[in-house]
């Protein structure tokens, strides 16, 4: 930063033809003060609303008591390791996160490849697929709870009209059902991202491969997929992050049940915090998930970077 505070370039440096920024030559106190002044609200905001809370979560995770003000050392973390409800909730959430991520990639990429064939009406199809993503989880949760209802829901009626077996979906396959609803909600988003990625692959690559005798299968594995790595990486990171912190699906559709089979982690933390009023334990639990998400993201980015190719 010391170079930035010099007001004139040193004689040994060739002077640029044109200053690159208005402040390169005139980094004077006035503009520095202006910059800090403009940033002041942002410092205050991110300090108070992001850094202070995460500091509080870490501090409270070592505390216990209804106000989370009695120091208890590692007690909350020890408790989490032994808590079978937490283990269950974590497993449920990992399954949910993995299934929604893989599903979003497979379905999103598949639909994007179909849409990428320059079909007429592409914009209309794209718009329709994107609508659920822009719809509140409250609407989607309530609507699907109605549709899936074993007594009055329309899904079983349609299935029986088609001669297919009916199910009490939220009782027999609760986790699979909320995974499917989540995919229904999010697939448009991943599709749009993959579509943008596909449109960035030059047509010549496919032409050259076809001339060399590559079939559609080979073109997909050798050209499409490798060149989409940055998109796939981004989609998978985003899907894992949002999958692991899903909440509304459990709160609205299943209430975590039956028998805690859809007790998504944040729903569990929410109940520990606001039903049991155990802020210390809830802080430790949320910090643990935060660590898991950071770890997952770092590993995914590492693996993804290694898999990146350039032609």
């Amino acid at each position, binding site marked *: 930063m010391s170079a930035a505070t010099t007001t004139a370039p040193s004689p040994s440096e060739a002077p640029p033809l044109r200053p690159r920024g208005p402040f390169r030559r005139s980094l004077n106190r006035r503009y520095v003060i202006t910059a800090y002044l403009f940033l002041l609200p942002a410092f205050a905001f991110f300090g108070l609303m992001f850094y*202070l809370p995460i500091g509080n979560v870490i501090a409270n995770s070592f505390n216990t008591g209804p106000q989370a003000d009695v120091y208890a050392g590692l007690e909350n973390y020890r408790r989490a390791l032994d808590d079978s409800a937490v283990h269950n909730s974590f497993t449920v959430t990992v399954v949910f996160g993995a299934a929604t991520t893989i599903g979003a990639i497979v379905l999103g990429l598949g639909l994007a490849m179909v849409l990428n064939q320059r079909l007429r009406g592409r914009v209309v199809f794209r718009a329709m697929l994107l609508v659920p993503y822009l719809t509140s989880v409250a609407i989607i949760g309530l609507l699907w709870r109605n549709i899936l209802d074993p007594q009055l829901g329309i899904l079983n009626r349609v299935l029986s009209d088609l001669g297919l077996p009916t199910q009490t979906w939220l009782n027999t396959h609760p986790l699979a059902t909320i995974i499917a609803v989540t995919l229904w909600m999010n697939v448009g988003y991943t599709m749009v991202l993959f579509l943008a990625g596909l449109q960035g692959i030059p047509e010549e690559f496919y032409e050259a491969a076809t001339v060399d005798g590559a079939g559609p299968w080979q073109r997909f594995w050798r050209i499409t997929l490798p060149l989409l790595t940055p998109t796939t990486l*981004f989609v998978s990171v985003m899907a894992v992050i949002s999958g692991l912190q899903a909440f509304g699906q459990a709160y609205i559709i299943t209430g975590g049940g039956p028998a805690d089979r859809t007790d998504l982690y944040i729903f569990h933390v929410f109940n520990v915090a606001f039903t049991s009023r155990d802020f210390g334990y809830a802080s430790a639990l949320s910090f643990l998930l935060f660590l898991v998400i950071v770890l997952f993201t770092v590993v995914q980015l590492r693996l993804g970077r290694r898999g990146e190719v350039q032609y």
Partner: protein
Amino acid sequence: MHIRPVSPARVAGYALLTVVCALTVVPLLYMGTLSLQTEAETLAADPVLWPESPQFGNYVELFERAPFGNFIVNSLIVAGGITVAHLVFDPLVGYVFAKFRFPLRNTLFVALLATLMIPLFVRMIPLYVMMSNLGWLNSYQALIVPFLMDAFGIFLMRQFIQPIPDDLIQAARIDGASELRIYARVILPQVKPALAVLGLFTFVFQWNEFLWPLVATTTEEMRTIPVGLTLFNQEYFTLWHLTAAGSVILFVPTVLLFLFSQRYFVRGITLSGLK
């Protein structure tokens, strides 16, 4: 090359897309017909596809059963307030990082971007305690203040402001314009499409936000539509016609915004992949 009059892949493509789009749209249309059915029709063992006579009165009854007017006003104030705050602060901070040079610039920018890694669930409990200590629970402050700025919005605006020529700023300075005036009159007009993307996304996501309004409100009058509607349904779980009517009210503004500005939304999603 041989000529293909009708490509079977294309036909299969259309067929597949039609099925998938039907799966997407039909449930939402069904929500619309539910909102026009009588209570008896919604509870019939044989689900009704279209009501005998559409019950538009459901939309009136909803406001009598729950303070739905409050929910709408609350949602408008909260989502609108947060959107305005983003449109004011995100470009300003983005502008400073794009065009000013000052000590610690990179360090501060990294500290800012790091907040993208801090999800709402980590902030939820401490923010609740903070709002409760301030006596802010059940207030607009509690619903708006934790979301006044957004690191991704700042990052986005910085990317768009960076290519604006410095000469433009320099010229305005020589003319004696104040720094704030330069920001408002020189910078902002150059990034209008980016502002549209930022504003639309912020509004739609805050309009739909569920977790924080659920945590920060305990009185019915202060609920936003998503929370108010969900808790209404928990209380009156047989009144599906009213729940559906409320869902339609929550749904229509976002879908209208989307239909009239689809390209901004698609651009916004693609931009989110810029990171």
